[in-house]
């Protein structure tokens, strides 16, 4: 079961204010304010092309915003550079739309890659153990020696999730974790996200169009429209909104 509202502490791990980003003169984010509480699953909903991916990419500094402040895990991340930036990125995970598995590496090497390059303290056995543990989490231990090209879409998503979790991040950004999957597989992934929240105390920002995923995972929902967050509430509140534009998402 996902956490009830009472179980979530009112202790923000992410605080974004007035975030702005434009591409080629076109404003995509136009003053986004956003908060994520510790242990919370926040779902962001918006039309395709509304800038959802851009927003979470700003939060890991893959895209540089033009204006605004971003405070994550008690530090201002807007100006982080070099080693400090890497240090910060190790505490957050990012599941890319489509998985972004390294296709020149096997599943094992995919999971080993972040471990080898960022955790200095681990020896080979510990790394192997961690890889197996993560694959067990997503129920794909058998796929360890497969190549990404040999995996189905759902398997890819789950392996990518395992790779995201391998560094045991405290915050995870999910960019459409269930897109292109059948209802059953998509439910499995949604349940995995909730499991992560329960067992590993992670806080998550989840972008999704998949309403069953919203229902299963969300503690709170934010609506992104025309570059700003226009509404927020729980699943129950949002699905009963009068506004036809919002209502359309919950059909």
């Amino acid at each position, binding site marked *: 079961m996902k956490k009830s509202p009472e179980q979530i502490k009112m202790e923000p791990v992410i605080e974004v204010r007035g975030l702005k980003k434009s591409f080629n003169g076109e404003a995509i984010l136009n003053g986004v304010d956003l908060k994520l509480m510790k242990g919370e699953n926040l779902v962001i909903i918006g039309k395709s092309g509304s800038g959802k991916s851009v927003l979470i*990419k700003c939060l*890991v500094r*893959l895209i540089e915003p033009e204006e605004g402040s971003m405070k994550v895990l008690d530090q201002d991340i807007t100006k982080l550079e070099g080693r400090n930036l*890497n*240090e910060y*990125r*190790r505490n*957050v995970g*990012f599941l*890319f*739309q*489509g998985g*972004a*598995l*390294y*296709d*020149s590496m096997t599943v094992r090497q995919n999971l080993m*890659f*972040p471990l080898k*390059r*960022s955790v200095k303290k681990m020896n080979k056995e510990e790394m192997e153990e961690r890889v197996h543990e993560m694959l067990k989490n997503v129920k794909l231990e058998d796929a360890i020696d497969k190549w990404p090209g040999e995996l189905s879409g759902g398997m890819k998503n789950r392996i990518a999730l395992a*790779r995201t979790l391998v*560094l045991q991040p405290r915050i995870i950004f999910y960019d459409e974790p269930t897109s292109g999957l059948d209802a059953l597989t998509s439910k499995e992934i949604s349940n995995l996200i909730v499991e992560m929240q329960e067992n590993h105390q992670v806080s998550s920002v989840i972008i999704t169009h998949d309403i069953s995923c919203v229902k299963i995972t969300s503690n709170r929902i934010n609506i992104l429209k025309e570059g700003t967050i226009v509404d927020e509430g729980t699943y129950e509140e949002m699905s009963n909104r009068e506004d036809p534009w919002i209502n359309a998402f919950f059909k």
Partner: protein
Amino acid sequence: MRILDNMPVTIRQTLMDMGGITSFTLQFSKDFFKPPFEAREILNQCYQLGYRSLFLVSIAGFIIGMVMTLQLRPTMLRFGSEALLPSMVSIAIIREIGPVLTALICAGKIASGIGAVLGSMRVTEQIDAMTISGANAFNYLVVTRVIATTLTVPLLVFYADAIALAGSFIAVNLNMNLNLTLFLSDAVGALTFQDVVPATIKTFFFGFAVGIVGCYQGYNAKRGTTGVGEAANSAVVVASLFIFIIDLFTVQITQLFVG
């Protein structure tokens, strides 16, 4: 930027590529010294890149060596200097044909391959994923490949030279009897310091150009699947262009020093 806007697209694109490649090279020289030193990945790349070009380089080298010998023979005969044929061919191959031919093949095969691989990694966000995992993607993907091409292309040139001489030896023997020892003493004996050294040095620059251009195009591929094709394609064009420019410079500089 007004001037840039009014230029033909190809020239503008080339100029912009030049600027981009320059800053890319600067980034390379900065990250070159940053740990970790990815020795395994460098070796892996050397093997992959070399192995994949070997077949084409062999065929091309062999045939060019043969054809050149057959083509030059009538002319040499007319001047009554058939005996100079091995020396003549050897100098042409070592100084110019071997390096440029091999480098162009590598531009077609290696630079485009790198452009496509890195391009698809960019488009499918694999490079972003590496960056976020706290790894230095530039170091792992670009530095390793550029080092690999800089080492591999000279080896391939050396190999192509040898194969071309073998082709030439066979062509010579189609018309007269010359044993291998004599052929080699003619061919190698004709070579001087200024034939070998500048030709060798330039192959390292060829290798560097092939690597850096391929990586630049792939690493900066545009979003969407068409970006991958474009990256591979412009990698070949720009790398070939660089090879000719480097070749021209080598001649000029060599003449400056040794006359």
